[in-house]
């Protein structure tokens, strides 16, 4: 009953906030583009048979030397920019959701255990969190990837997660500490519930709302980190699509006035992150009882 009421209030607020509607719309378009990218893209930019070096550095189709085949132009290898962007979004979203899944589940578990049992585990976790936070996720992931010289989508997910999980652990810890001493947990214990049952059935669902905001913010942050790592050349390998790498290639051609290699992937990246941030902003205000 209560959850029903909450849902309807959520829905009510949601439908009346133009910025979150815009954000969700952008996000929906990107998720669809990423899911169906391979079918809607005019060309598979990573299939060597599909691309031709003769098509290199073509401007967008509405300009004098453009071709209708390449609506947003081509890069230095003759890859269609539009298709590469569609494939790149796929990588961005796979990495983002991958990191949220890996570091989220690990972080939530660790945060919950630390808050519930306290003691050494808690102290260790907090010191670890302090260290990771002051070095920043980007720097840690960059150094890990740089030193171990491994590349690929999975490796990037792992490298970012190694530094990123403390974000979830810290939030979860705070949230659990707050409700740990409330009456309903005492009641659950009095009724004979074991640790496992209290953790999973009582603490977990009630401590989750602040985590939703972290997830939303984290999706945007991870997309930017992945793009940054690939831009620096330590992220996904050259044989895989990435928005960051497209911009890094385009960077070498800005003095030649070939703006399309940067502007289009750039706009895509910004829209993707703005969409998620608009959603995250709304969620934060919605879940904060202090501002109503």
């Amino acid at each position: 009953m209560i959850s029903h009421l909450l849902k309807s209030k959520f829905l009510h607020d949601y439908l009346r906030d133009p910025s979150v509607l815009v954000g969700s719309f952008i996000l929906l378009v990107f998720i669809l583009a990423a899911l169906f990218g391979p079918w809607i893209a005019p060309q598979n930019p990573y299939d060597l048979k599909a691309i031709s070096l003769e098509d290199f550095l073509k401007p967008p189709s509405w300009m004098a030397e453009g071709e209708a085949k390449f609506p947003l132009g081509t890069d230095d290898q003759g890859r269609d920019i539009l298709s590469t962007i569609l494939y790149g979004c796929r990588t961005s979203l796979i990495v983002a959701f991958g990191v949220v899944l890996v570091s989220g589940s690990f972080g939530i578990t660790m945060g919950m255990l630390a808050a519930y049992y306290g003691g050494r585990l808690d102290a260790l976790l907090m010191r670890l969190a302090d260290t990771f936070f002051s070095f920043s996720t980007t720097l840690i992931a960059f150094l890990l990837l740089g030193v171990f010289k491994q590349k690929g989508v999975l490796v990037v997910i792992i490298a970012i997660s190694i530094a990123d999980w403390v974000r979830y652990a810290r939030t979860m810890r705070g949230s659990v500490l707050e409700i740990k001493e409330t009456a309903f947990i005492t009641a659950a214990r009095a009724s004979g519930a074991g640790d496992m049952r209290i953790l999973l059935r009582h603490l977990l669902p009630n401590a989750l709302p602040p985590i939703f905001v972290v997830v939303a913010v984290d999706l945007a942050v991870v997309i930017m980190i992945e793009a940054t790592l690939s831009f620096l050349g330590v992220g996904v390998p050259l044989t895989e699509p990435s928005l960051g790498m497209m911009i890094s290639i385009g960077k070498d051609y800005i003095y030649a006035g070939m703006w399309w290699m940067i502007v289009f992937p750039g706009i895509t990246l910004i829209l993707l992150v703005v969409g998620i941030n608009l959603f995250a902003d709304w969620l934060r205000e919605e879940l904060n009882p202090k501002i109503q």
Partner: protein
Amino acid sequence: MLAGVYGTEQDRVEIRKAYALDKPFYIQYALFIARAARGDFGNSYVNRISALKLIMERAPATVELVTTSAVVALILGIGLGVMVSLKPRSAVSRLIMAASLGGISIPTFLIGVLLIMVFSVYLHILPPFGRGETVTMGFWRTGLLTWSGITHLILPALTLMGYQLAVLLRLTRAGMREVLTEEYIKTAWAKGLSARRVIFKHALKNVLIPVITISGLMLGELLAFSVVTETIFQWPGMGNLLLKSIYDSDQPIIVTYIMLASVVILSINIIVDILYAFLNPRIRYD
């Protein structure tokens, strides 16, 4: 690798021996600790000179870039955050908030590339790379004393501070919005205190604690993104050197960089902890 692309097998063996690379990793580690304790971090594999010296040569450029960005981001971030929170509905505030959404949504490298495109390639008003003319003062080569040095600093500093500025602004605004509705602020107004006193003494002081926490964490981020910024602008700093060393697998440089970064980050965190005590008397240890 040290033997060069054309080195013979014998060269390789000799070099491995000379650098103790043929020993198991725990012996290498012990050797490294023993030398590091004496302040010797080894020589660069590529340049064959002391890694620490190589990094210290590059340090002034990075320190100037990072400090400029941090100071400007702090002042502007808090200042604009307070302004926006006081008049949330005005056109200027809305514009600033929209810009700050842009600030947290555009990755640093993209800001840099776009700035170069606009200001250097199309408008030709600011130089796109390098540090300009520098003045040597003792061991410190500074670019802050020449006009060319300052114009060269503008774009990299803007790039590096963009994200931090937006984060600080949004944090200050959110904090001020919460605090301004509290009872004690209403009391302060009712007492007839001047607006300046209420806003800065009563409201802002309480908002500053989370802001200071974030600015302590800012340093790690700034160092990380100095790698990006320095690469884009070919700024001759430590970040640029680090990325090059990573491409070249120049381990001594990477290790020395990490050690130096840790020392700096730790010191800043200690300073931030002391600042807390000034801002919030409740957590003073006495």
